[in-house]
């Protein structure tokens, strides 16, 4: 493998391995995992989960006794009791240009509205204020662009891939794994490494899994 670059086949292999290793933990944490194949026979990975808004959600009051202490200074509930019903989709698609995966994102609200405003999506899911600032500062419109999904042909947000390879190069696997595979990150962990880097920008975190 010409790390951090992948061929299309290597990417598909990485997807297989990622799904095998991470699907149980992801689905346990409420993220649906799907391997999709486009009409052209190309594989891509879809992760879907509910959007938990960072701000406290106003819950409809059924009984007076159900009202909890309302502390506006406190942290937002981890799982908003009645979240918006919005869901966020993360599509990992291979790019022949950049030879790395590219992350496509969209939010669909409970009323079926597709949110393609990068700022609005960041507001919903990018926790770190510094990160939001850094993303907004990327030239030509910020780190989140909008374009047609390469396999579905409909509008999606996407993370500009120019710096992905540089970021990945900086990722170093634990020494034990390096010894075994002779490279910094092998196909087993490639997508996990990549998703950890890219996903942070758009509210995607991976659960840790035990190594067997």
């Amino acid at each position: 493998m010409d790390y951090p670059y992948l061929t299309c086949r290597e990417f598909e292999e990485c997807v297989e391995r990622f799904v095998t290793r991470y699907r149980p933990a992801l689905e346990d944490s409420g993220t649906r995992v799907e391997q999709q194949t486009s009409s052209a026979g190309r594989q891509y990975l879809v992760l879907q989960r509910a959007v938990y808004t960072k701000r406290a959600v106003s819950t409809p009051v059924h009984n007076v006794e159900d009202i909890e202490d309302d502390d506006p200074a406190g942290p937002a509930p981890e799982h908003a009791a009645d979240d918006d019903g919005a869901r966020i989709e993360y599509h990992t698609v291979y790019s022949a240009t950049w030879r790395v995966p590219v992350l496509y994102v969209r939010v669909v609200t409970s009323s079926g509205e597709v949110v393609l405003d990068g700022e609005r999506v960041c507001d919903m899911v990018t926790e770190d204020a510094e990160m939001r600032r850094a993303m907004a500062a990327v030239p030509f419109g910020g780190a989140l662009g909008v374009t047609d999904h390469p396999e579905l042909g409909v509008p999606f947000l996407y993370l500009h891939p120019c710096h992905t390879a540089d970021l990945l190069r900086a990722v170093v696997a634990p020494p034990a794994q390096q010894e075994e595979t002779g490279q910094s990150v092998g196909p087993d962990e490639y997508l996990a490494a990549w998703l950890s880097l890219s996903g942070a920008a758009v509210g995607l975190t991976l659960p840790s899994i035990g190594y067997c």
Partner: protein
Amino acid sequence: MDYRESEQRAPLKRVWKGMIPIELQLAASDAIELLASAVLPEPFQTFYMLIPRVGYLPFISGKVKERWLDPMLALSGSRVPSDQQIKETDIWFEYKGQALKWHYPIGLLYDMLVSDVHRGDAELPWSLTLHVRKLPTAKIIAQPNGQLMRDMFMAMIKEADFIRNGSTKRVMDLSKNDQMQFLDGLETHSYEKYFAIHSIIVPPTVDSRAPVQSSASSTSSGGQKARGAMQPKAIPVRFYMQTSGSLDDGAKDAPTSGAATTSAGGNGGGGNGLGATKQADIMQFHVSQVPVALYREGSSSELATVADAFKLCYGIADQTNDAFITNCACISHGVCVPWESPISWLADNFFYADCFLHMVVVGI
């Protein structure tokens, strides 16, 4: 510019200056809402404009509003200022029921959607419907506007730079002034402004001779290119392949791999000669992108052709599988591009403003 250089630039200039006359009519529902009548006042019923093939719709929306919609509303005696009635971000274009993807170059949209372009018999002027309400956000990107278009355009330029040079340095190193001039050249369709900056991002290659048969010119052009020329690593190419949506028709004539099977023969290209050609559906084009090296794999003298690029793009490993050559036409800038054309010549002369080759493949 000496005569030879000017002669070499001629195809490029013609491509840049290619225009499409459009005939616009306002969507009936919008007319009713704005003017309480489906029939517009006399001089405003149809609006004609010449628009550049290498341009983009958001850059012409402003003119459409200024020269047609605003005067029309003013004439209708409406007291509501036109700015509150129509916003540029609400404007979208439709052709025969298809919402036009405004981030595609205009010439590409025409080549994809208008029948018989490859026969040289296509509809002109191009008859479009203008809408100012209810932009279909499931089909096209919302809020078309100049700034967003510029950002999306620069993303393509960065990608093209990366494919050609292995990094986005050339684009990112452009001064602010150069960037502004580049975008200004695009928006105002100015050859001089655009190409002054284009030549910084894409230094001209030495060999820009006419596309003779690649085998004949291969050795000499290979040598010329090597001498001090800026050889790109690869050329940015996108194919837009018309698919029938069904794998039944013509599958037996088609190449065996993947999406290529759907294109040959059986789609709405009208090859059966029996009835009217079926309207191409923009959502049924399969878009595929692949960086294409100038030379065939394993060779330093055989120039890669459009057919080679197509095979690379669709993973057709069998070199003898050429069914698509007989069954399909390749169109770019309204011209039927021979399958044996060298990519290198096209890369120098037939690119769009975003530095990509956009090639439409239709069944014939």
